[in-house]
């Protein structure tokens, strides 16, 4: 793995005293998850213990320590979406594709994340596919989307 990009990211945040979270966000944006090697590298560059970097990476729900699939499906499980049946979408993904929250399909085509609220409650149930918002998503529609991957 070429970790020189991690050096660059750390340098961009050099003047900030509280920089772990933003650094990890940028590292994740680059690799689409947080590889162990990159985390170790960040710890070395910041001269802090690996355990501290790992604690931060592990605490925040937005970070993924596992590689993600080609596409990222985020299912909103906020209250409004729950009432309008977003749990049925998670059920569908689990029963039809054997993919639970935080997991990746066996062919690596997509990963699934349940998120607390995407803040578009009026459009419930909401799903984002690679950051594109989709409104009023039924199990039917989700199936069609996955078929296109």
């Amino acid at each position: 793995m070429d970790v020189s990009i991690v050096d660059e990211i750390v340098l961009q945040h050099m003047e900030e005293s509280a920089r772990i979270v933003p650094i990890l966000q940028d590292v994740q944006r680059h690799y689409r998850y947080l590889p162990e090697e990159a985390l170790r590298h960040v710890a070395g560059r910041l001269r802090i213990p690996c355990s501290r970097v790992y604690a931060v990476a592990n605490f925040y729900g937005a970070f993924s320590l596992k590689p993600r699939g080609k596409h990222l499906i985020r299912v909103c499980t906020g209250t409004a979406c729950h009432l309008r049946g977003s749990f049925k979408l998670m059920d569908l993904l689990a029963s039809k594709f054997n993919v639970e929250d935080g997991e990746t399909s066996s062919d690596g085509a997509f990963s699934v994340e349940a998120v607390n609220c995407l803040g578009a409650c009026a459009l419930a149930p909401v799903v984002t596919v690679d950051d594109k918002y989709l409104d009023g998503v039924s199990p039917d529609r989700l199936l069609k989307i996955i078929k296109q991957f």
Partner: protein
Amino acid sequence: MPRSALGTPVETLDKIRQVAIKRRPPETAEIRVCCGTGCQARGSLDVLEAIKGEVQNLDADGEKPRVKKTGCQGFCEMGTVVLKTPEDFFHCRVKPEDAPAIVHRGSEADESVRKLQFPDPATGEPVNRMQDIPFYRKQKRLVLSRNGSVDPEDILDCIATGGYHALASVLAHTPPEEVIATVEKSGLRGRGGGGFPTGRKWRTCRDAPGAKRYVICNADEGDPGAFMDRSILEGAPHAVLEGMAIGAYAIGARQGFIYVRNEYPLAVERVTLAIAQAGEFGLLGENILGTDFSFSVRVMRGGGAFVCGESTALMASLQGEVGEPRTKYIHTVKSGLWDCPTTLNNVETWANVPIIFEMGADKYASIGSEGSKGTKIFSVVGKCKNTGLVEVPMGITVREIVEDICGGVQNDKQLKAVQTGGPSGGCIPASLADLPVDFDSLTEAGSMMGSGGMIVMDEDTCMVDVAKYFTDFLRKESCGKCTPCREGTDIMYQILCRISKGQGKEEDLELLEEIGKTLKVASLCALGQTAANPVLSTIRYFREEYLQHIRNGVCPAGVCRELLSYSIDPELCKGCGKCVRACPSEAITGEKKKPHVIDAEKCVACGVCYDQCAFNAVQRTSPRKKR
């Protein structure tokens, strides 16, 4: 009076304002396209482009309307929303192909826009003007008015319409002490949940010893079902920055932070742009408007942890640590970020600050109820007809919001309850719908204001499931630092799971209440202290429904799947095969055009077939039939 080479702060701002007005004459007609997250998801950016294209094709000699991208206009149910001034013609569900009709609309009775007009629920007649639509008529849009009228990506548009005027006049005429007194007089209370008096918070922070001070804008809007803070940041970022600058001036801070959820990319983008633009015009940074007041703001993205909405956890997160709260025997106003006195308010609170100085504290305090002044924005979502953002004077009743403004419950079903306050709040039953909505009344009823999420629930909503949902949420979001919260939420969840499977005991209700009370007194932070509210309030108002689950194995709302059976009525089934394709567990079989059958062994009772069937052939029964 502070004076620079350019003149007083008000004069300096006025010069910028004159430039802004010249560039965008106020008398020019405008077509305002809502580009909040909701409308964008429905394709408003394409609508914007289509309208721009259509305007470009207009005759060169006539004056062309200005096409403007605005923040969320609130009526998300009807997106994409387009407003045409000066008439205030309101168009909903607009698609790009509707652009010519809107651009060329001349009169009220224009037939070509009829399908874009909102039909009056009482008469069915199309409504022309925004202010005549029931959704808007009863609202009092102080904070949200900017959202719908100003281009959030253009600071000049904001300044031309009065933006930063409050800051300039505060810097010119008002000593910090007086600023705080004004906020105290206005009666403003924090809009993020607790409802703490903002002025008092500022005063304690100003009086706390320390050389360095910070202000923080809490935009870690974690309550599922609430999205007003996102909308304000996306639609009126300058109002938030202006409020923060006034606050920083009052308490003596030079540095501010906006801690915003990573799940809100558009809000991050707009507020980052707004900070850069404000810096260019000398409204942030060194020597603001030529005075010796300096203040800069940085944006930090959160990491997707609900507990980081709690002030001490948020500050820990800002410092680059794990976002765990601490005990608050020393308040953050005295020792907060990096142990310095810190004032933290949420987005909506900051956005209210300039309004107080624009209209005056007395006038502001005349809005609202006895203990709760001003307006509050609610996101009314769930099973109601017109979902969206609603800004109303505090003290209005739940019924007025749900029925008069939001058109009542979807599909003409019965209102069962309204959930307020997010996972920390509770459920208010339909029988209390005439309860005034303010900080104190909601707390008395066992719920809380929270950040203003209002989730409408109908007869198809199971209250045991709702309690289970919130407890599951809190169990996962509990940071685990203190035992009552970590273990208590988990045990409550397990009990609720048992009840929803028909395996509950009547003593479970007492046990839940006991655990709930323990959480309230023994938890470290507000997350744990309020975690039992959803459970306690649903037991308080819907005990009968719990007992139905426990005694009879019945889920009256038809939600708890372990208590349900699905079967197909052969008389009604047309054999269309829609349910076969939809069933995730492949439990349905049958030849085309012949009645289908559900295999009870394979069926997971998810109810997808029930939702899909166009002929009502799928039957749902509770308690579950014996296999």
